[in-house]
Every structure is written in C-alpha cells, then in structure tokens.
C-alpha cells in the first residue's frame, strides 16, 4: 500500500530539513519532503520547490502540506492550485513540528489523506497540558472493548512506543482512548499519548469503540506484551 506523503514548507531550508528529520524518525516508511528557503539559499519560500516536493511526497495517495509562517501558506496554496489534481494535496493549518509528527505517524499507520490531515490539525495543543480527550460514549449496538495493561517496557509510553500504539490505532476502524489515572488521550494522537506520561509499571486502560474495537484492543495488548518491540 502506498502511504500518504508529507511536505514541510518553511522559510528556512534548515528548519524544513530539521522538521523532516524529526517526523521521519517516527515514521520510517513515509516520504517526508522538505521545501525550505529560496532557490538561491536565502530565507523565503519557493513555489517551484514546493511543487517538486509534492511530486516527491505523493506516491499516488496524496500528500499533506504543513507550513511555518503566513507567506509560506500562500506559496503552498499557489503550488497546490497548479497541480494537475489539486485534490491530491491538502494544506493543513497546524503547529509545524507537532503537526508533522502527528501526520507522519498517522500516515505510517496507513491513514488516508483526510485522516492524515486530521491528525495534523488535531496536534494543535496536543502536548502536555492539553485538554483530555473525551472518552467515547458507548452506544448500544456499536462494538466496544476495554482492557487494562500494565506497562512492562523500559520507557513506558514514550516516543517510539506511543508512535507504535498510535500507528496501530490508525490501522483499524475504531476510536481508541488510553487512560492513565484521571488523564485520557486519543489513541490515534501520538502526542496526546506521550503527554499522558505513562511509565514502566503504570497501569493504563485502553478502550475502543467501533467495528474493529476488539481487534484494536487485541493488537495493543500484543504490542505491550512484546514490550513495544524494545
């Protein structure tokens, strides 16, 4: 399956490359393309470079674009408008670093273009102190599942394990909530999961709702049993 790609549009080549580096670490199979700086190496954005980056990132299932500052948005918009299929690229208003990480993890999990864009948008304020995700209300007739897991792995739900969990959630058709004590997080959001700060020895509760609820819980249990492949 071809994964959705990402394009990081920035005024600075080094900033774009840095964001790509951070996002790619969490999503090894996603093409994250940098479009930073002007053609002559200065500060600014280059529409041609953005178009080329979209072409690199879009392997057939589309690309999500993130940008740093105002005029980068305008240049990115222009670039998208010039594509032969403007619907193949989505420009997302999201915090650049958090958005890129969240989008990369969603893309790695096989999420489609709209879902990757949603993941990026959802990253706004997704760090520590973010409002807790509402636990899905269980409605009759919708499959749901729940399990308590004691974390035995070395680092708990830190970066890589959180990314693996979020990727697992992205791959199934279920809404997943992870709870630690009074705090809850949307299982599809790597940043929200990390922000729980769940450590080795902590007990988390995973609840899922939707057609694949049972499968979601089973896969996460397996993941934890394997100590998140540490």
């Amino acid at each position, binding site marked *: 399956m071809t994964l959705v790609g990402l394009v990081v549009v920035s005024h600075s080549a080094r900033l774009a490359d840095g964001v790509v580096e951070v996002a790619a670490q969490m999503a090894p199979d996603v093409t994250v393309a940098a479009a930073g700086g*002007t*053609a002559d190496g*200065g*500060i*600014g*954005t*280059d*529409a*041609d470079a953005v178009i080329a980056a979209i072409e690199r990132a879009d392997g057939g299932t589309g690309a999500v674009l993130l940008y740093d*500052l*105002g*005029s980068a948005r*305008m*240049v990115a*918009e*222009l670039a998208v408008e010039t594509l032969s299929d403007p619907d193949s690229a989505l420009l997302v208003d999201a915090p650049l670093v958090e958005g890129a990480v969240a989008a990369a993890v969603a893309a790695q999990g096989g999420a489609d273009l709209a879902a990757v864009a949603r993941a990026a948008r959802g990253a706004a304020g997704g760090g520590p102190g973010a409002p807790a995700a509402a636990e899905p209300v269980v409605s009759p007739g919708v499959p749901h599942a729940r399990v308590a897991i004691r974390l035995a792995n070395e680092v708990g739900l830190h970066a890589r394990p959180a990314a693996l969990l979020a990727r697992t959630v992205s791959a199934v058709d279920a809404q997943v909530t992870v709870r630690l004590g009074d705090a809850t997080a949307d299982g599809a959001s790597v940043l929200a999961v990390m922000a729980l700060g769940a450590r080795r020895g902590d007990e988390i509760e995973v609840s899922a709702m939707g057609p694949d609820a049972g499968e979601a819980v089973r896969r996460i249990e397996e993941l934890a049993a394997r100590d998140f492949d540490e």
Partner: protein
Amino acid sequence: MGCTADDVAKAVRAVAAVVAEHRVELIQLDRAIGDGDHGENLDRGFKAVVSKLDESTPDTPAAVLKLVATTLISKVGGAAGPLYGTAFLRAATALGDAPELGPAEVVTALEAALGGVVARGKAEVGDKTMVDALVPAVNAAKAGHDTVAAVLAAAADAAVAGAESTVPLVARKGRASYLGERSADHLDPGARSTTLLLRSFADTAAGS
C-alpha cells in the same frame, strides 16, 4: 487607441525600474515592521521579469501579465510573490485574449487583481496591508474614466491616500501583526509598493 502587448511590456519594464529605484526605501519600511526583505524580493522578482521580456515579448497583454505573474511567484520568495503573482495572474485571466486594452479592460484587470490579492491574503481594508491601497484604487478606477491614462491616474492617486491611511493602523495581517501596537505609526511597505506600481503604470500610460 488601446494598449497592446508591447505597451504593457513597456509599462512593466518601467515598473521594474521604479522598484529598483525604491528598493532601499521598501527595505527600510519593511525593516521597521516586517522582515526587511520586501524591497530586495520585489526587485529580484521584477529584474527576473525584465530578463524574461528581453528573451521575447508575449503576443497579448494578458500573456505579458501572465509572464509577470509566474516569474514573481517563482522568484520573489516573500509574501509579495504569491500576492502580486496572484494579482497579475487574475488580471491576465480576466483579460482573455484581447489584443488591446481600453479603459474598460484596465478596470476589469484591476478588479480581478484586487480579487486575487484578497483571496490569497484574506486581508480586509484596515488590516494595514496592500489591500488598503488597492481597494480605494480600484474604486477610483471604476468612476467612468474615458482613457486608460485617466483610469490609472485616478487609481494611483487613490492608492497614495489609501497607503497613507495605513500609517496609524495596527497591523492585523502579515509579519507586522506580530508587533501588535508597535506596528502603528509606520507606512505599510506592501501598500507603498502597490502605490509605486500603480503610479508607474499611470505615468507610462500618460506618456504614451
């Protein structure tokens, strides 16, 4: 007597000269409330436009404007690239393949240019941007003038007043908006460059 592609190309070359002449002024205005690159970027963009025109002059006024648009979009780097680029692109599209431009066509092009700037930058009058110069310019252009020179002169005069009106404003769009109250008491560089462009077009039209 209307403006041909050659006339439009000549006007664009004159604009490039004016931008080069005012490069430092625009840099200084932008340095006060923005990132200081407006004069540099616009000068680089219009110099590239002139190089392209040196290679060949397109056949229609719209094709000249389209060349300006695509060159500015790829060469400018800052906000002026997509904003002026979209303005020239929309103007070109609105003109179709008309071989010559009369006053009505020039008004149509200006209205389309304004529409493009607003669509791209989402700014309104009072935000302290080029829109503050362009909106009154287009309104003045629409007042039933019977020559291209009169249309452009009215637009340029109104743009000057519009740009002046940005001085006391607190910026709500663009890099200057990060300064909040400190952006007041400065002329907006984008409004200033819009005025320079319109004044240059008007001067060329008056001289031909």
